[in-house]
């Protein structure tokens, strides 16, 4: 059983917006024999717009605390994140501590107040990287029991899983791993040009119209290219693209009603997991298109 230190992030908490991701991720890992050891007493990564309230040091310190706890609890075991924003914030913190000694010093001065310290050493990885590098495509394919034959899926990579760091070996403009995952489940990855366009991210809270316009374009593009389902690795994308469809329909007089699920949910389903194990009962837009494979 392969073990990783795990940072779920706020949205993956019980009854939080990405509870469906968290639940399906757990099912998926069980099926792969992967154990995710959650950092005990982790705190928010202060991602997205934490910069404005926190500025750089408090923001970075928050991720540093999670590193420090992880080190205490699990040593240098790879730290896995499932949320794009958390993963990005952790990687940014690690990078800046590595390249900017004064930042590292200040962070540790702050950590000291919590009787903690961290001088690096833990590798931060996205769960997707674990699947590709540690598990491997062959295994991912071999697990399929119920191929999602004929299902047309638009892989929506979004921004923060893709930039500025991105999944190892993928390109910024045309990452292919998500399409490969879709195909690994036996489904059809529909080509469409907006797979790395922006959903508005945290601005969905404040610049609703502007953000909804972005999501509208994305949905339109996916639908125009024949997608029945949208799949994404990112909780921010998932939330914005799924939950706001009603609002968008009001705003633009559109009729969108397309399920938006996580890659983990697709895998669990294709690997023979139940509707519940795949947390597909936790969708706001019912994932009816997937019913036929349940």
């Amino acid at each position: 059983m392969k073990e990783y230190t795990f940072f779920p992030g706020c949205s993956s908490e019980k009854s939080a917006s990405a509870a469906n991701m968290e639940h399906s991720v757990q099912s998926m890992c069980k099926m792969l024999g992967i154990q995710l050891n959650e950092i005990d007493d982790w705190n928010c990564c202060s991602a997205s717009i934490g910069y404005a309230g926190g500025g750089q040091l408090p923001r970075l310190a928050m991720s540093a605390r999670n590193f420090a706890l992880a080190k205490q609890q699990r040593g240098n075991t790879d730290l896995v994140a499932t949320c794009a924003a958390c993963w990005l914030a952790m990687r940014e913190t690690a990078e800046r501590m590595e390249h900017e000694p004064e930042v590292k010093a200040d962070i540790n001065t702050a950590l000291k107040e919590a009787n903690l310290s961290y001088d690096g050493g833990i590798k931060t990885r996205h769960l997707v990287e674990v699947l590709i590098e540690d598990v491997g495509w062959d295994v991912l394919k071999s697990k399929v029991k119920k191929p999602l034959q004929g299902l047309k899926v638009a892989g929506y990579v979004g921004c923060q899983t893709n930039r500025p760091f991105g999944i190892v070996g993928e390109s910024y403009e045309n990452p292919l791993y998500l399409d490969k995952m879709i195909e690994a489940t036996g489904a059809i990855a529909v080509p469409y040009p907006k797979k790395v366009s922006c959903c508005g991210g945290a601005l969905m809270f404040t610049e609703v119209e502007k953000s909804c316009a972005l999501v509208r374009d994305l949905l339109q593009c996916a639908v125009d290219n024949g997608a029945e389902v949208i799949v994404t690795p990112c909780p921010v994308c998932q939330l914005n693209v799924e939950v706001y469809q009603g609002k968008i329909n009001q705003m633009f007089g559109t009729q969108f009603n397309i399920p938006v699920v996580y890659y983990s949910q697709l895998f669990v389903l294709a690997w023979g997991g139940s509707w519940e194990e795949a947390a597909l009962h936790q969708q706001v837009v019912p994932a009816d298109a997937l019913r036929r494979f349940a």
Partner: protein
Amino acid sequence: MAYDLSFARDVYKNSEMGHWIKMCKQCGVCAGSCPLGPHWEFSPRQLFQMVRAGKKEEVLKSHSMWMCTSCYNCIVRCPRGLPITHIVHGLARYASVKGYADPDQVTNRFATRIFWTNIVSTGRVGEAMLTMRLYFVDGIAAGIKQGLEMKDSALGMLKAKRLNPIPLRGKIKGYAGFQAMLTKAQELEEKRESGV
């Protein structure tokens, strides 16, 4: 006086990643890369040249920096390797700290007053509380209106067990230390930002 560099130098020194502003060669690739580009009064490269031109008020009072969705397109495309997203975040923070940023700018308000308070009060984001605070920031009436507008989504979330009106969990266990850490961090941050 144009191109008086005192403002620019303060930004170089005290705004996050601000020193990179020196390096912009004004190619414009950032502007075209931004998903909300058309909504920026001044594109990143314009902001950078304005900083160098000493246009402090126009830069800091502008809403442009608050238009960043953090998509990082500009960072990966900038031919001079400027961490544009972070520079823009830095400028937003700088404007807010120096008291130039419009307090009613929605994102400024949400980011500084709601989001940050939310996470520091418990150590984690309480999504329900966050949205409530967001809706009611303009008072009860506006809050209800907002809430009603979003009620379908909210209900959907509730049904999907992805939104919990009553937070299950209070503060994180190590909250005291967490808070002490933040206080110290803030103290250091203010020192840095005030340029001493």
